[in-house]
């Protein structure tokens, strides 16, 4: 664990606020960071962690409040200002260029030169090697980044951020894609950095890690500061209490079902494995049921849904749909079995952003809405008009490009698209991620009305409140295995599940 941190604050935020189009993302935030400490920042989605870090990093500009660095007021307006103040961020989405070598990435945009323009390769290789050795990373500076594992890329990313003088390092979910060994290596590096006097802001959802590495913990909720305390004085229960708070949003309250779950399985999964991501998973899904799946990023939740939708090859196990053994080896098999998936990343895999609402919503059912390959345009228009009305999609017109819609309306287009295939089993992967509160409530309501017609939903979500609002049953997934199964009636509090997913 951390050695006693020096008391001089290297960073102080006072009264920092930020709004986006009238919606307050940060209220009067305060935060301080001491020299050589690891300060963890925790909170649910939308708590304001990333907004705060983007302000520190100069990506967003604060509306009010002051930032002090080493006691001096620092006016950070751009990423360059942040860099000049010694603030560096290790990006969650890697910002390395795969076709370049480790050294070239580390020195990208601040290459060492002779005669003002000749690259001094020798010096850069030497400095990279020193940097890597110092961090205990066993890598050849001349290796291409494309040949490295995701974990090593993350380490190179850290080395890159340290190649220029950094006194404050921000790490956003640094272990999300690391193996256990790589995580240990990362933690060693963090200890080294602390010893060198570097201060670290550590953002993570993994409480176990936070309690292992952080000196202090700050909890945020809905853009407000909740608490800051020494890790030694805190326990998991208090952190989770702080994250959840007392007030629960209306839309996220459990409502009794309009129709009870039918005690007849539509989907029976037995011993399902998908490489190392999903291990020996068995469960039944009943008609009219909402089955929630809770788990951290990397717990195998997305892989499980993708395997059921035929996007991933199953390495072991069996799937029965409507009592019949079924092999789902491709998307067409899934569609034939009336299974649909609303994928996690709607911009990458859910939508064609440069196309209209109509073209997106009709894409999976084009063949059904045509004769001999010729489109039945009136029927397509009628169907999409109905989609827009039923799901209250605010698009103006069906011809509007989806890239111009808000996140919530984009997500509704993805849902509409799959509803048009008339699925009996709807797989929803983080359907409310990056969606405004209003649309979230509407999506939750949609799940209720959809299952009221006797159809079934498997819902994966990081927001436990959301799972609790609609799930009849919740499975907890951890490292690819089901570790708990909780009936809705048996769950007394959100804490219980928060504890379960942290293991």
């Amino acid at each position, binding site marked *: 664990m951390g050695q006693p941190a020096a008391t001089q604050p290297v960073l102080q935020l006072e009264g920092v606020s930020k709004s986006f189009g009238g919606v307050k993302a940060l209220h009067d935030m305060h935060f301080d960071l001491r020299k050589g400490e690891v300060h963890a920042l925790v909170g649910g989605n939308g708590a304001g962690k990333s907004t705060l870090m983007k302000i520190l990093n100069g990506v967003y500009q604060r509306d009010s409040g002051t930032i002090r660095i080493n006691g001096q007021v620092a006016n950070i307006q751009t990423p360059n200002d942040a860099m000049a103040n010694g603030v560096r961020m290790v990006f969650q989405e890697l910002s390395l260029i795969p076709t370049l070598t480790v050294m070239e990435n580390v020195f990208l945009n601040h290459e060492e030169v002779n005669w003002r323009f000749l690259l001094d390769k020798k010096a850069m290789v030497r400095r990279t090697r020193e940097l890597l050795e110092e961090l205990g990373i066993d890598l050849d500076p001349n290796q291409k980044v494309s040949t490295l594992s995701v974990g090593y890329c993350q380490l190179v990313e850290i080395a890159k951020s340290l190649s220029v003088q950094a006194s404050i390092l921000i790490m956003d979910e640094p272990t999300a894609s690391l193996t256990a060994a790589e995580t240990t290596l990362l933690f060693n590096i963090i200890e080294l950095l602390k010893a060198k006097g570097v201060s670290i802001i550590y953002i993570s959802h993994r409480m176990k890690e936070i309690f292992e590495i952080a000196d202090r913990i700050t909890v945020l909720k809905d853009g407000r500061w909740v608490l800051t305390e020494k890790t030694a004085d805190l326990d998991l229960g208090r952190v989770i209490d702080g994250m959840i708070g007392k007030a629960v949003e209306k839309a996220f309250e459990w409502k009794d079902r309009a129709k009870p779950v039918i005690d007849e399985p539509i989907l029976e999964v037995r011993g399902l494995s998908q490489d190392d991501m999903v291990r020996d998973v068995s469960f039944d899904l009943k008609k009219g049921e909402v089955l929630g799946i809770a788990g951290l990023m990397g717990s195998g939740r997305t892989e499980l849904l993708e395997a059921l939708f035929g*996007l991933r090859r199953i390495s072991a196990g069996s799937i029965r749909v409507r009592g019949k053994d079924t092999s789902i080896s491709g*998307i*067409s098999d899934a569609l034939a079995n009336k299974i649909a998936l609303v994928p996690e990343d709607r911009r*990458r895999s859910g*939508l064609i952003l*440069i196309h209209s609402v109509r*073209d997106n919503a009709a*894409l999976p059912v084009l063949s059904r809405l045509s004769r001999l390959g010729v*489109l039945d*345009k009136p029927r397509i228009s009628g169907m999409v008009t109905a989609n827009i009305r039923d799901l209250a999609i605010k698009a103006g017109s069906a011809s509007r490009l989806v890239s111009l819609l808000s996140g919530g309306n984009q997500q509704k287009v993805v849902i509409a698209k799959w509803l048009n295939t008339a699925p009996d089993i709807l797989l929803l992967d983080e359907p409310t991620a990056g969606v405004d509160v209003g649309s979230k409530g509407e999506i939750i309501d949609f799940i209720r009305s959809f299952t009221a017609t006797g159809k079934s939903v498997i819902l994966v979500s990081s927001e436990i409140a959301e799972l609790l609002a609609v799930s009849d049953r919740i499975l907890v997934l951890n490292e690819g295995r089901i570790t708990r199964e909780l009936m809705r009636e048996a769950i007394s509090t959100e804490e219980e599940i928060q504890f379960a997913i942290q293991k």
Partner: protein
Amino acid sequence: MHNLLTRFDLAKNIVYIAFFIAIIFFAITLGDRFYSITNILNITRQTAMISIMAVTMTFVISTGQIDLSIGSIAALASLIVALMLQSTENIALSVFVGLGFGMVTGALNGILITALGVPAFLVTLGMMGIIKGLAMWITATTAIPIRVDDYNTIFGLGTVFGIPILFVWTLVALAIGLFVMNYTTFGKKALAVGGNEVAARYSGVNVRNIKIIAMTMSGFTAAFAGILYSGRMQAGRFTFGEGDELTVIAAVILGGTSLFGGTANVFGAVVGSLLIGIINNGLILGGLTVSQQMMVRGVIVILATALGTRGRFFRKKTPS
């Protein structure tokens, strides 16, 4: 709010503006040498092959691919048909074999692209060399004359009610292209594949088949263009279609189709081809040398596509 100016999509419409500017410019500077009926009909004859290949190239580009092999497919198809006609004099059979060759080559392009994961640019660049070499080899680079008059009439020299048959073929290709792109599932799926291949796959679109079909269509019209060249010149020759791939791609992009896939404008592509034809014609009539023509053409292509691309930047940015 939605006034004409903000709704006007420069990228998609630049080709029509350029088209009219070119016509007005040459009409003023060249007078009736340019706008005489004979000259106009001549332009439609000269551009027919480019226009027809531009129709299917629009499909290829909208699926996010490219086809560089069309010029050499046209050359070899002209030779195959010429040789067939020489030995059999059977028009239907010769044309059938010529078109079949084009389709098979196009399909092969598509299969190589999808099965090997090699970019379309490289597969078709390689194919361009193979087919061209084959065309030079089988005839030892000599031309093969075609002495079947009906063939030359149908595929090159004839007219229908005074309209050159080559232009009639262009209109047929345009009509089919417009119909397939805008009224069939294939058109929509092709755009989906080019717009976001991952999302298309997640939606159950058979990305592989769509890509192969687009390349097959391109091979087919390339062979057909070769047949039209041979009908017009009454011979098969390995030089036919030389450099056409670049002219065709320029016509498609000028027409408002994005080089990155996901959008298509079949009509624009044909207008783009006519625009290039008009510029060529005007420059020749204006007495410019071949070298000067090449330079002016290059400048115009860069200018027009640059304006089109700028237009795309002016559009509202995607919210993140």
